[in-house]
Every structure is written in structure tokens, then in C-alpha cells.
């Protein structure tokens, strides 16, 4: 065993827990823009600042960008009362549902437009039109045949309807199950049916909204009458 005396390093002074790695290189008072760092006086006497131009520059730059982001966040929140981040909070089921509906609302006009175009092109088809997929398949797959349907809504209030049917849904044996709101206290919408539209030679989706139905978003599935297999989704948003 060596005769030399062992060297011991002093215990480092405890300064507080460091729970976020991302703050390692940031100013301690700069917490992701929510508590912006105070800008360093650019023309402060050099002796008051340590680390040379490189460290000073980085410190100064962090103070500029954190202050900027914090200001941007405050401005955005003042304008829209929404978080600065452009992304909606995803821990709220209602928010997710609303985003899905917004997306569907974009698809529906295109879907209907596509149907109308194809019906005009080939009016000899009786009952079902060959429908080109409005959206390219991710894998470059072939277009498929999908059923054409009219939508009839009976409601005293403005409603927004979103329908999405799976490709190859081409027969009339469809049933829409009741549509439910996220809030279970709201009654389900049940008066929904697919009926033949003799005049136009296609099926019609008929939806009746009771006068007393609370406003909100109601969603449900469309299934095949015989197999019970899900063939699509239906969402209705009732305005106040």
C-alpha cells in the first residue's frame, strides 16, 4: 500500500436542485422565456464581466432571445388568449376533437366537390358514382370506389356536418349509430338515417336535430347494417 497521503476534493457547495438539463447553459433567471433574463448592459465596464467576449456574447444573446420570446408570447396571449405555442394543448380531449373536426371540415367541401364533378362526368351511372380519392395515398396506392350520398339536415340552428367514409364503401346498407358528445350529460343524437333518394338515384343521409338539443359537437360511427363493420365517421357541430 502506498505511503502517500490521499488527496480529497472538497464537497461542492449545494446550490439547489437542477431538474432541467435544457437550462444548463442558460442564465439561471431565464426560465424558458417565462421569466426572462435581464439584459446585460452592453457598455458595462469590462471589469464587471467575466469570461471574455465569447461567454459575454452568448450570455447577452440568450438574454436577447429569451426576452424576445417572452414578449412574443405575451403579445400572442393578449391577442388570442391562447398559449404562445401554435400547437393546441393536447391533453384536452375536446381540443383534439375540435382539431379533428376542423380538419374534416376542410375535407368535406373537397369531397362533395369531387362527387359532384364525377356525377357530372358520368351521369349514366345509376346510384353509385366512381369517386376519385380527393387525397393522395401515402403509399401511392390506387384510387378506390366510394359511395356518393346527399346530406339533408333538419335543424333550427346552424350545424356543421362532417362525414368520412372508408374507401370501397359502395352499397346502401349503412346505418349511423347515435352521435354522442364528450359531455355525457348531453343527450345523444339518434334521429339519423340513410334513406334512398329516388330522384337523384343515390342514398341520402338524413339528420334531424331536436330543437332542445344542447349546442356542442356530437360524433359517432357509420357501420354496415349486416356485418356491423365500421365504414366511416360522422360528426355534427351544433352552434349556440
Amino acid at each position: 500500500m502506498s505511503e502517500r497521503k490521499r488527496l480529497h476534493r472538497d464537497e461542492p457547495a449545494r446550490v439547489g436542485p437542477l431538474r432541467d438539463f435544457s437550462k444548463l447553459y442558460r442564465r439561471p433567471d431565464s426560465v424558458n422565456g417565462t421569466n426572462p433574463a435581464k439584459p446585460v448592459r452592453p457598455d458595462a465596464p469590462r471589469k464587471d464581466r467575466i469570461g471574455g467576449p465569447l461567454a459575454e456574447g452568448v450570455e447577452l444573446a440568450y438574454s436577447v432571445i429569451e426576452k424576445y420570446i417572452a414578449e412574443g408570447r405575451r403579445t400572442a396571449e393578449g391577442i388570442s388568449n391562447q398559449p404562445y405555442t401554435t400547437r393546441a394543448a393536447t391533453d384536452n380531449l375536446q381540443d383534439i376533437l375540435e382539431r379533428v373536426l376542423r380538419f374534416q371540415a376542410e375535407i368535406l367541401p373537397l369531397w362533395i366537390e369531387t362527387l359532384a364533378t364525377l356525377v357530372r362526368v358520368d351521369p349514366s351511372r345509376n346510384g353509385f358514382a366512381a369517386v376519385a380519392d380527393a387525397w393522395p395515398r401515402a403509399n401511392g396506392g390506387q384510387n378506390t370506389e366510394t359511395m356518393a350520398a346527399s346530406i339533408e339536415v333538419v335543424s333550427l340552428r346552424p350545424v356543421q356536418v362532417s362525414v368520412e367514409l372508408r374507401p370501397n364503401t359502395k352499397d346502401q346498407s349503412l346505418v349511423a349509430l347515435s352521435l354522442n358528445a364528450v359531455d355525457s350529460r348531453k343527450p345523444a343524437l339518434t334521429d339519423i338515417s340513410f334513406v334512398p333518394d329516388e330522384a337523384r338515384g343515390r342514398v341520402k343521409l338524413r339528420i334531424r336535430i331536436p330543437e332542445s338539443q344542447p349546442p356542442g359537437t356530437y360524433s359517432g360511427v357509420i357501420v354496415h347494417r349486416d356485418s356491423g363493420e365500421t365504414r366511416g365517421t360522422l360528426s355534427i357541430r351544433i352552434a349556440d
Partner: protein
Amino acid sequence: MSGTTSTLVPSMLREYGDVTRAALTKYLPSREPRRYLYDLLSDYPQRGGKMMRPSMCIAATRLYGASLEDAMHTAVAIELLHNALLIHDDIEDASEKRRGLPTLHVLHGVPLALNAGDTLTLMSLRPLIDNRSRIGERLTLRIIEETERMARECAEGQAMELGWRRYNATDIGDADYLEMVLKKTCWLATIYPVRVGALIGSRDSVNLDPFVRYGFFLGAAFQIQDDLLNLVGDDGYGKEINGDLWEGKRTLMLIHAIRESTTEERRRLSRLLSRPREARTLVQVTWVRKLMDKYGCTEYARKIAHGLAGAALHEYSLLSAGLPDSRDKSFLEQMVTWVIERN
């Protein structure tokens, strides 16, 4: 990860630059009035350029697994707008050279160049609108929102710099400079390309704030290096050497020189900077350059640029953590080293 700094960045800039340039030419009309308008629009794009902005947009899109085609319209719009703003910048700065050739207003006069810049700005809207057919209306609108913000930031930054020169501001600090660069340079050069790229690639499902930090540190390092090259660049630099001194541009080096100068030197500098470009003499510009050497201004700015590059790498490691390794991931990381090593 693949490739090294010396090969990966230039090769990907070439690769993405070529496809962007090919797509961009489809947006440049070849009809009359060619001589007075459309020939002018295609002048700067045909001179080359680094294609850094569209390449970063494409890489950020692919970083999240989306395809190059998803980013193409936006990449073209970025490059069109960049060229439009170069025309305006050259007029505002009274610059004489761009990409190794006389600037557009030197060739054709200010009115025609100004009109060409305006037209190119408006024409950059078309590819953004064309995004609808590829990525849908919602993302298209989000990108237009981002574009509006970027344009506002750029205009504010440009106004700050022009205002400092117009009213001969000599009390500017490093923080003022960084804020101006954040707005004037970083938004269009780095922040906006990676933000819209990430927006497209992730289908608007990631927080874009980290891209502001990464883009800011990268863009600021880029700008400082650009300002340094204006003083020490070689023949391949493409702009007028010492042009910033002739124009009285408030660079980090000039700000440092003003700060470190004696009272008498500062008074002389202020007098010199208050004069318009055409009233400055070679003797005066040489004196300012020597003053910068006296106070180690280029070394000071170089150190800050290196520090900012380090911060950019750090922020990038945070935002890219968890994303699979790819050429695009390496490219965006190595861009940081590339911007301060280029000459």
C-alpha cells in the same frame, strides 16, 4: 450520421439548391416586358447563391419524415422572397456588387430595380398558395401566417439598421445589434425556413419556439461572419470589400470600435459616420479599418460568433433529441460549423 462538415453541407446545399432552382424557374415568366421586368427578376437567381434558406427548409421538413416535395413550394417561395429583398437591400445600402457582379440598380437604375423587387416579392406568394394542392389548406394558411410574421420582423430589423445610419446613432450596444440581427437577418435566413419546414414535416404538431432559438444563434453567427468577411474576405466573397465601412453599417466590429475609442477618436468617427457614402473618402475608410485593428474588433466579433455557434449547437441538440439520425439531421447540425468556417 453521415458525411463531414467539409463535404456534407456543400453537397446537400448543391443537391437541394438544384431542385429548388429548377422548380423556381417555373415561376419566373418568360414573356414581355422581358427587358424591363422579367429579365431583371431572373437575374439574381441565375447568379447562383448558397441556397441556404430553401435547403434548411427542406431539411427541417425531412427531419420529421415528410418528403422533399412537401417542402418544395415553400422552399421556392423563400428563395424568391430572399432575392426580392436582396434587390431592395442593395438599393437601400447603395451596394455596388452582388454575387460578384454589379447590383441590379447599378445595371438598370433604381426605378426598374425597385419595380423588379416589388414584383418578385409578390410573385413569392404564388408557390405559397400552390401549397394547397400538396399539403392542404390548413398547413398552407399556417405557412402564410408564418410568412406574414417573418416579413414583419424583417421590415422592423431593416428599419432599425437604416434608422441608425440615417440618424447617425453611435450609442448602440451589442444587445441592440443582436436584436436588429434577430429581426433583419435571422428570421428570413434561418428561423423561418426551419420553422416552416418543421411545421410541414410534423403537420403542425411540434412546438416551434425551440426553432427560434436555434435559428437565432445560427443566423447571428452567420451575420457576424458575413460582416467579418466584408472586412477580410477574398476575391470569392462576391461583395465589395469594406463595403460596410463605406456604407456606415453598424456591425459588431464598428460598435466595438466606437465603445473602445478615446473621446477624440469617437468624435472623429461620429463626424465621419454622419456623412453620406459618397462624401466619405478612402483615407477615412482606411482610418476606420485601422481603428478596428487597434482595438481588436475583428477578433472580438469572431469570438462572439464562435460562442453563438456553440449555443446554436446546444439548442439544436435539444430540439433534435429523439429524432432519428439522418443526413438532414446532420446537415442542420453541421450548418452551424459551416456558417462560421465559410470564406
